[in-house]
């Protein structure tokens, strides 16, 4: 037991309900928050899949009016946030329901911030920059990976500067998360793979984060075990609700872990990529994770060994180097099994982009909790490896 384990630590988590049909509780919770007119923030595909209809029906059942805002792309943009906030004000809303993956949920968080503080969303970049609390917020995640439904993070695309900004504040932890595995059944294999790998990245980065704590460790460890055990199965058997539920639970645990322990270089670099070229967040993480692990490994090998154990690896008879290769290889294997075999180069990133990408990544708040503090050259090298 080290002295650090007695440090004061905080663990923030929203109230959440997990289980089948949790989404039908939307009306009851909105009513509990005194909502009379709810802004439903979602995306077109989620509406198409029918999940939004379930949510609005629940609102109707409790006599709560609603306005749907679905003008959102992946990697939500500042302009979309501002447009959503305008709709919120115009419709006279008093609460927000986010239905979807990370994009609608982060956008919804942004709309809440803007509607309460009446400033551009980009003004809130960084940690604890929000003054006025946003309205009540209900999150219904439709992917198993984002963690945004329980986290204090919102990532918004600054379209002008072509960077993703991170807004981190306890004020944007949602008021209630209705974690329902049912919507996962409509996820494409590709999205299942990308979001699942995002969740694993959250767990690994939270676990090795220099801000991790015993409580976040519990969730991170559990999450790695769950994702390792069920992600591939869910990928292969998409309609199996049991597998879906386990990945949802894994994603939830990962979210709780990273929300409190924060992330690391993988996310810092992935945010940079996302801002630069709108690449899918989960895929970026997948392609970067093993390279960042290799870079970080020696600063905290025993943490990574625990990650390996969570992935079910038997490392007892192996040398430290063998262990490292085994653990990183295990992550690589999972990625490849999930069909994520492209490189950054395949996705259009060039050598020439790397200095700017590295510079932006170094400014990302996630970099603060990476176990090893990199310099620009370190980041550039990692990008190059992933190219």
């Amino acid at each position: 037991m080290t002295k650090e384990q007695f440090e004061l630590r905080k663990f923030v988590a929203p109230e959440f309900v997990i289980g089948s049909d949790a989404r039908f509780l939307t009306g009851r919770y909105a009513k509990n928050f005194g909502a009379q007119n709810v802004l439903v923030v979602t995306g077109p595909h989620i509406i198409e899949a029918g999940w939004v209809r379930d949510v609005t029906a629940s609102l109707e059942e409790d006599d709560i009016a609603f306005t749907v805002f679905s003008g959102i792309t992946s990697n939500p943009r500042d302009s979309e946030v501002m447009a959503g906030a305008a709709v919120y004000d115009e419709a006279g809303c008093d609460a927000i329901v986010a239905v979807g993956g990370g994009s609608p949920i982060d956008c919804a968080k942004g709309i809440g911030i803007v509607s309460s503080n009446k400033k551009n969303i980009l003004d809130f970049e960084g940690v604890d920059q929000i003054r006025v609390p946003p309205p009540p917020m209900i999150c219904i995640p439709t992917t198993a990976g984002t963690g945004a439904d329980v986290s204090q993070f919102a990532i918004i695309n600054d379209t002008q500067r072509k960077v993703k900004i991170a807004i981190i504040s306890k004020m944007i932890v949602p008021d209630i998360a209705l974690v329902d595995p049912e919507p996962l059944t409509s996820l494409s294999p590709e999205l299942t793979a990308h979001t699942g790998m995002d969740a694993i990245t959250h767990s690994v980065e939270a676990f090795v984060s220099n801000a991790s704590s015993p409580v976040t460790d519990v969730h991170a460890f559990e999450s790695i075990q769950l994702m390792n055990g069920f992600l591939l199965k869910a990928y292969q058997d998409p309609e199996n609700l049991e597998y879906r539920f386990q990945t949802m639970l894994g994603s939830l645990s990962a979210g709780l872990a990273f929300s409190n322990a924060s992330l690391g270089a993988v996310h810092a670099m992935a945010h940079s990529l996302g801002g630069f070229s709108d690449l899918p967040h989960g895929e970026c993480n997948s392609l970067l994770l093993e390279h960042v692990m290799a870079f970080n490994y020696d600063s905290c090998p025993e943490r990574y060994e625990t990650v390996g154990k969570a992935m079910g690896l038997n490392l007892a008879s192996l040398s430290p180097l063998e262990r490292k290769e085994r653990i990183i290889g295990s992550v690589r294997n999972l990625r490849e099994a999930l069909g994520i075999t492209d490189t950054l180069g395949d996705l259009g990133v060039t050598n020439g982009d790397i200095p700017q990408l590295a510079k932006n990544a170094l400014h990302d708040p996630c970099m603060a909790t990476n176990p090893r503090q990199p310099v620009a050259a370190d980041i550039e090298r990692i990008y190059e490896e992933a190219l």
Partner: protein
Amino acid sequence: MKKHSDTRTDWQVQRDRIIGLGETSLRKSYYPELREKIAELEKKNRELHEAYERLASNEEELRQNYDELSRREQEIRSAKHYLEAIYEGSPDMIFVHSSDGHIIDVNDNVLLAYGVSREEIHAAAPSDMSGKGYTNEMALGKFQAALKTGKTEFEWFGKRKNGEEFPLEIRLRRIDHVRDDGTIEPRVLAIVRDISEAKMAERALDQARKKLKLLNTVIFQDIQSTVFALSAYIQLSGSSRDGTKVTAYLDKEAFLISKIVSSLNFTKNYQDLGMQPPKWQNVGQVFLYAISHLDSLKIERRMEVEGLEIYADLLLEKVFFNLVENSFIHGQGVTEISLTYRESMDGMTIVLTDNGVGIESEQKSRIFEQGGGKSSGLGLFLAREILSITGITIRETGEAGKGVRFELLIPKGAYRFAEPPQKTR
């Protein structure tokens, strides 16, 4: 190196913030706002409660005001009853005029006195209801005076529907009529008294004084001339030695003295004249009193004057006495007298007849003169004088040999019929 260490420091700060133990790293909280809302609601509630209390006390005040109002209304209602009773029960006529003289209301006395309907009176102008020479302008002048000073009083002549005029004493009072909208409309209240009787009494008293003076003069002259004659006979009897002559003088003297005594006695008859104002008297009743002093048992009488009343001096009884006494003394075997009346254009004629010898034509004009009668000569003279006090004239129209017929003409306004006694069901 330097840059690297700066970055590290920055990251340290970032890390601490993310861990979130700083003062600003708080989850959103509704509780302070909730407390504010609760405090606000409590304040509103208190205000509402206070407003309610005020409302309740206002209501109490209103209720008291209402009680006060209904008490006032009660008072007004009872005052109105008094007024109505006075209005209808007053012996006077009461008019309510608008400021321009139009009649707004009258009591029943007005309708009775003027002999008009309520509709007619509302359409009437002041001059329509006034005697000759009394114009609308004069009436308006009186109203203006009342409006200006609050009151004015004067005498006037009214005119009934049949044209008959009658004297009035009028008191005008300005009254402020409050309209429904609360504004004030000045009006004039006229309290009008029929002073016909007072006027008649006044005239009668005046007459009585004149008569008294006349009678006194007559008697004084009578006694003076008799005393003059007496003193002459006393002188003659004093200077005469002739016993027969002296005896004759003494007889004359005794006669003259009895004449003086008779004159003095006569003054008793009229000394009460004009002592009291004339009165309405029931003719039949007064007649019966008058003849009760006479031995009238053997005489049959016929009386058809029921209910007839005339306005006459209180010596009316003496008048009837004198007239009937005249029949007894001079009628020679009168067995029957009658008292009847007939009404004509000029007024009411009361007719007193007997079945005696009557009065000869050449005497008729003298019987009412002083000394014109068969005996003392003053009885019928006095009767005429008493009657004339209230404008009643008397004449004898009988046919000699068939009995006397006295006709008393009573002018309009000086006779009336008493209400017939009410029959009980």
